[in-house]
């Protein structure tokens, strides 16, 4: 009799537990990143040719979509917490520009690191959930498979300022994965922490080397030299505020 009762109670409690999210440990908190775009500090206005990069190309941003993954929070004591979420971000879809990370151990942190793109384990054809966005980011098998890490597109004027042309900066393949490391002191508590993640588009085109649409080309997909230049420039795109 008793055992039966116990059994029933155990069954009930499993059912109860499965109704709720995983029991949240007291010692964790949440962080929200709101991604905002600028050109050397000036708020980005889309679809207008009004920005100048380090090489002197006057250009616009009309399209920008990319992945952020492997987000890792590093504590002052060097212990790490890594999220396994893959975030698809599209500059023109505001809801994708908010990243929310939950269940981060409470404490003092000194840095955040993440990838622009997908690590080699994930960067395989059909590896991500088949959403419309992911399918549109596919990097064809005939070009090695996986996904575009970024698609940054717009228009630019040639140096004489008369002839307009398009540019399409596409980045993919494992060797061009961009690792971002941002040193920033913050503390995770039980209250949600809201942070701004500021992305300076002009950083794609400078540091360590200038990218010039006229010289390096207005199209990068499959052009290894152009892609690796962009990938190296990309490491200092972000700031946290």
């Amino acid at each position, binding site marked *: 009799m008793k055992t039966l009762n116990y059994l*029933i*109670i155990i069954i009930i409690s499993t*059912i*109860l537990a499965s109704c709720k999210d995983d029991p949240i440990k007291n010692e964790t908190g949440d962080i929200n990143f709101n991604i905002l775009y600028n050109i050397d500090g000036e708020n980005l206005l889309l679809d207008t040719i009004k920005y100048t990069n380090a090489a002197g190309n006057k250009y616009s941003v009309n399209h920008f979509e990319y992945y952020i993954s492997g987000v890792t929070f590093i504590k002052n004591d060097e212990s790490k917490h890594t999220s396994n979420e893959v975030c698809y971000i599209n500059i023109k879809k505001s809801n994708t520009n908010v990243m929310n990370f939950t269940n981060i151990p409470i404490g003092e942190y000194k840095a955040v690191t993440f990838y622009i793109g997908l690590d080699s384990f994930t960067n395989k054809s059909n590896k991500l*959930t088949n959403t419309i966005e992911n*399918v549109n980011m596919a990097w064809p098998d*005939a070009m090695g498979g996986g996904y575009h890490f970024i698609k940054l597109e*717009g228009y630019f004027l040639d140096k004489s300022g008369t002839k307009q042309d398009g540019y399409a900066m596409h980045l993919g393949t494992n060797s061009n994965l961009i690792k971002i490391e941002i040193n920033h002191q913050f503390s995770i508590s039980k209250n949600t922490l809201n942070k701004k993640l500021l992305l300076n588009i002009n950083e794609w085109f400078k540091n360590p080397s200038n990218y010039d649409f006229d010289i390096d080309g207005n*199209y990068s997909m499959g052009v290894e030299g152009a892609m690796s230049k962009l990938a190296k420039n990309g490491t200092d795109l972000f700031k946290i505020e």
Partner: protein
Amino acid sequence: MKKNILIILISVFVLSSCKEDPPIDEKLTTTPYKIEIPEYFPKIILNPQNPMTVEGFELGRKLYYDPILSNDGRSCASCHDQKYSFTTYASNALVHVNLAWNTNFLWNGHVSGTMEDIMMFEVGDFFKTDISKINNSNEYRQLFKKAYNVSQITQKDIAYALAQFFRARVSYNSKFDKFLRGETDLTPSELNGYILFTTEKGDCFHCHTLPLTSDNQFRNIGLDSIYDSNNSGRYEVTHKSFDKGKFKVPTLRNIELSAPYMHDGRFQTLAQVIEFYNSGVKVSSTIDPIMTKPGKEYGLKLTSKEKSDLINFLKTFTDTTYINNKAFSKP
């Protein structure tokens, strides 16, 4: 013993509280309709407000073929004929295939949103359907009662039924699909066309993204160099100068059947389309950046064999199962 019953009762209660309450409507007994989708397709967009039912689908199908919707003897099928993947040569209408994944409708995206939204437009703005005619039909009153449990039929009910028929029309049995599923091989020519399509050489995949063959965005591919009131496309909706000459990227599924081509039907054959991409692209300030990569301004420089390989590949999108599917034909 009593205690046991109590515990069992509690557990039943707990169990049922885990699920959401099903929409209880005693009078409405509909049969769920399952849409078959291969796993390599992206997740289909459904509308929880309009769950798929056999009754709703069949009603939408009947309406699609019924001139009662219009005031001039036409039905939707007059311009959207199954034989040609639901278009006709004369109308150059957009084909009806895999529209369930779309959120932008019509060449200039005049309607954005759900399938229900575009159907509201077709019934209300385009056909200006006389709802009283439908309400006066005994048969339709019964069918709408069965599918939606309504006694007074509205434009919304008609649009919802049509939306179900649209959502269910999924094409996934073309030769290309069978190739993706490993059920067949492509010929060497088709395979070479596939490689041209999905590499920088042909560079079709950035807009005609696989497997649906459209990213559902608006783009200017350079058909003209000047865009005025006749061909300004997306600009007609947004009035933003950077949208001049942009049109919805059309699906290429069943493209072999849906001549003539482009929003104005200017090309009669796929060979003409390929020749346009190969050598006819005109540059303007809103041309898509994908169209002007280095070298492309002088054309794709395809050999005649490469051109026919591309065409042969495009023909692998033809799905005869779809155009012969009795479930989609006139009831």
